[in-house]
């Protein structure tokens, strides 16, 4: 990764953030606001997933569960306490913590498994959560759950939720940035490469994995809460959609797992390409192009797009 001075990096990030933040207030068509909202959401999901999947090498295929848990937690909070507009936004914070708590409970047994076993058991976890909520009547069950929207004009509501999603995404990237250059991230990398060796290097692998897993569940939980309110209607088929789980993994690995920018690049590119293809190309053709893109990247850049930059810069990671 290029090592710009920290201050200019920060200034650049702030400018980008500010530019994105004023976008919904400029009167742009709803379509673009909505598209950008989706991009942020996937950037946030892929970046969070990268903490456990990319840095620690534990491929979680059940991350949509945390997203869904966040969505339902927010819905319950809003319904149960008749929250105001501001409180609605803030209710995604406890949603993040609930997702984190579930991650701790699930992670404790599951993180003892490695490789494909961990991937399968997390996949099952997401299926179980989906079924569980489908069968709980107070959560709407198979009917889904309607949420009352805020008492504000719809554009304003969209803009507020847009800012909230942008905020969560920025926060997740900030945490990933810190992880990338901290002792914590270094420990996770060692675990990914060889967990036994990591332990003989005095790295408390069980604890670090739990922390990474909990952290990687927190932001999807928050994002789920905001998304629930954006849709105003949630259903398990939507917020526990297995395709989201798979997309998160694909995006992070497409861009480059275990790198800061990889998941961001992957999420932005894949969301935009997918959108572009479904708008401008016939559906059958779109799938073929989308698929070939993956095949191409996997063949030529098996470690994701970030590898291309690393190659051109030589091998020094610092």
């Amino acid at each position, binding site marked *: 990764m290029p090592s710009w001075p920290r201050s200019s990096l920060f200034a650049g990030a702030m400018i980008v953030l500010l530019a994105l933040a004023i976008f919904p207030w400029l009167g742009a068509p709803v379509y673009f606001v909505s598209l950008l909202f989706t991009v942020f959401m996937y950037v946030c999901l892929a970046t969070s997933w990268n903490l456990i999947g990319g840095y620690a090498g534990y491929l979680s295929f059940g991350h949509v569960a945390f997203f869904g848990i966040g969505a339902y937690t927010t819905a319950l909070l809003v319904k149960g306490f008749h929250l105001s507009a501001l409180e609605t936004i803030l209710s995604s914070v406890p949603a993040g913590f609930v997702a984190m708590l579930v991650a701790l409970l699930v992670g404790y047994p599951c993180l003892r498994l490695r490789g494909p076993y961990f991937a399968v058991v997390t996949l099952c976890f997401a299926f179980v959560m989906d079924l569980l909520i489908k069968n709980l009547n107070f959560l709407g069950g198979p009917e889904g759950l309607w949420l009352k929207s805020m008492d504000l004009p719809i554009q304003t509501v969209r803009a507020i939720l847009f800012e909230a999603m942008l905020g969560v995404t920025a926060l997740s990237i900030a945490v990933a940035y810190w992880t990338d250059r*901290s002792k914590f991230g*270094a420990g996770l*990398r060692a675990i990914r*490469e060889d967990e036994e060796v*990591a332990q*003989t*290097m*005095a790295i408390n692998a069980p604890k670090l994995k739990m922390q990474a897993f909990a952290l990687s569940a927190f932001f999807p939980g928050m994002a789920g809460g905001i998304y629930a309110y954006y849709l105003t209607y949630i259903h398990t088929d939507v917020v526990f959609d297995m395709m989201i789980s798979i997309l998160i993994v694909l995006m992070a690995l497409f861009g480059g797992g275990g790198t800061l920018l990889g998941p961001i690049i992957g999420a932005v590119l894949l969301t935009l390409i997918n959108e572009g293809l479904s708008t401008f190309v016939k559906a059958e053709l779109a799938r073929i192009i989308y698929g070939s893109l993956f095949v191409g990247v996997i063949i030529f850049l098996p470690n994701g797009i970030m590898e291309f930059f690393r190659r051109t810069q030589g091998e020094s*990671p610092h």
Partner: protein
Amino acid sequence: MLEGEKVTKHFGGLVALSEIDFEINRGEIVGLIGPNGSGKTTLFNVISGLYKPESGQIRFEGTLINGLPPYRIAQMGIGRTFQIVRPLMDLSLIQNVAIGVMYGRDDINTLPHALERASELLRFVGLESKAYLLPGKLALEDLKRLEIARALASKPEIILLDEVFAGLNQKEIEAAIALTFHIRDRFGITVFMIEHVMKAIMETCSRIMVLHHGEKIAEGEPQAVANDPRVIQAYLGAGYVGR
């Protein structure tokens, strides 16, 4: 500083270690030899916590350590290398070592400081010019040096060296012997080493233990052990004893 009492480890019906007693004193260089499959690496794995012994006790500085997770044992000051080298393949040499420094017993927690310390350690083992390469580019000798640098990174009190001389040529062995002495003399680290290269054992160790079929069959000064009939029998068969 490190002592074992009746340490026993089974794999199914196979007795890999049978009531092994041992004691390593601070400042010693102790050798552990024995034919293939005699349980040497198993003993190291039991000490470093990768395996849990079925019975017996291992104490480090008087504290019982068997049953503790490997990272706890490493935190207490027992470092090790692996016989079949296990570098962190996707990370450069200096990162391999720096991670060990950050999690080790030195009070270094930030990456820049850890990298500084790591580059000192790489210089010590003679890898400073390759610090930013990936381990995949290195020859075996260098990878063994990396194993040592990484083990030193945690700042251990005692280091378990598992066949760091194997596969090296004459000249490389000389260098490795010098390195072994440096580890003890410059860092004050006690050394417990598994070795097949007799020249290395004879020159470095003050004491040798011999394992055979999971049992300790001899212990003592290198010269005496090398002439011990039980040891010769274990390595070469009964017919060679006394020749």
